[in-house]
């Protein structure tokens, strides 16, 4: 579904991704963790070309993202992206937020899009917040609207960039619950997170990134019980004791 082949990315002089090779299968849930600044956000932002890569190959759903002639709007419609800061449209209600792309990109009739929008918002537990603006919602509710916005496009892949890092602790679980359900339904997901409970319980593989490299990638049982690299061990001991 997603394949990185020796992918390199620079920001000016800064070498941010140093030869990433990675394959994610359909219906797989991959959790990516690693210290701040290690390139996790950049890694998943390359997948829908929010960031272009400079070297290597990146093939997503059969499309060659690394080739500049590849038309991205079509591929992006198939990939939901959830940001740490939610990035909801503040001038639109929850329902308008989730129906904009289906109406404008998929060209679905408004009535039908709204019906679907209602259904998906109800599914993430916000059936009673359809006409609220983001500013009227709590962080956890906003992030669930953001997930619903991705889901309303009926994507093949969902990418999450630290979806719970900006949330108050008591709201983290309501968002993770939605993501758990999504994983159970067989969505292909890459989740950048430090929620190791979620990784253990839901993911098929966990990857550890440091200084722009994939240091280690393994099924969660193995990843947590027997990390192979010293750096992984060090990182895990830090975040698990916190």
């Amino acid at each position, binding site marked *: 579904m997603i394949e990185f082949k020796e992918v390199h990315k620079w920001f000016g002089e800064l070498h941010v991704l140093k030869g990433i090779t990675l394959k994610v299968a359909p219906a797989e849930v991959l959790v990516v963790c690693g210290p701040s600044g290690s390139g996790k956000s950049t890694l998943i932002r390359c997948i829908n070309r929010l960031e272009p890569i400079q070297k290597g190959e990146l093939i997503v759903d059969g499309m060659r993202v690394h080739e500049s002639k590849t038309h991205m709007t079509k591929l*992006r419609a198939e990939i939901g992206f959830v940001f740490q800061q939610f*990035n909801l*449209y503040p001038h639109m209600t929850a329902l308008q937020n989730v129906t904009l792309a289906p109406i404008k990109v998929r060209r679905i009739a408004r009535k039908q899009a709204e019906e679907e929008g209602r259904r998906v918002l109800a599914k993430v537990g916000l059936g009673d917040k359809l*006409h609220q*603006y983001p*500013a009227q919602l709590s962080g956890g509710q906003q992030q669930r609207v953001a997930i619903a916005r991705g889901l309303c496009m009926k994507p093949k892949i969902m990418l999450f960039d630290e979806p719970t890092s900006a949330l108050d602790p008591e709201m983290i679980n309501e968002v993770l619950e939605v993501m758990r359900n999504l994983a159970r339904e067989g969505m292909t997901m890459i989740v950048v997170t430090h929620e190791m409970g979620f990784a253990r319980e839901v993911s098929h593989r966990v990857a550890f990134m440091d200084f722009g490299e994939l240091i280690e990638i393994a099924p969660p049982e193995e990843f947590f019980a027997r990390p192979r690299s010293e750096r992984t061990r060090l990182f895990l001991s830090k975040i698990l004791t916190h």
Partner: protein
Amino acid sequence: MWLFYIEQLLGSLPFFLKGLWMTIAVSGLSLLAGTLVGFLWGILRASRSRLLKPLIGAWVDLVRGTPFLVQVFIIFFILPEFGIHLEAFAAAVIALTNLAACFICEIVAAGIESVPPGQREAAASTGLSGLQQLRYVILPQALRVSLPPLVGQYVLLIKDSSVVSAIGVVDVTRVGWLTVQRVPQGLLVFGLVALLYFIICYPLIRLSNRLENRMSAGYTRSRD
């Protein structure tokens, strides 16, 4: 004596109204065209275009850094040297349109840049095209920020339009000049001129204030 002058002034009221109409025509046309051009320039200026962005920036700085009166003279007196003949009215509208476009360009670009980059990224990641991102996500938020200064700018531009009387456009200011030759009561005559400008500008000033208040209220209006 005063009564006599006021009577004379009332006699030339039709002349003043014609001048007022000219002021409205010059400013109205220029603001309309200047808004269209200004939005286009502003969008390009806030874009990533390597060529247009600095080009428009340089032009805006040039126009903002020179007196409007001189710009009007250049268009009216210099262009004919190059074989481009313009009537005073056309020269006035072109000069004021350009001035309006430059100020509006800056206001619009600032509005667009005030929208957090995450908004564009969110819109792009759902598959909206660049134009759709602009139209449905960026501009509505930018406009909210830009509208109060935009309307405020209209007021300044309407007042600046008095400069075009210098090339013989018979607007309210010029009517004042012509009238004061017959009715030597400067205070009275230009008091009337000022009043006429104020009548056009005041509603816009009020509008700008109201928009400002609405903007600071934030996006909390519930719709159910």
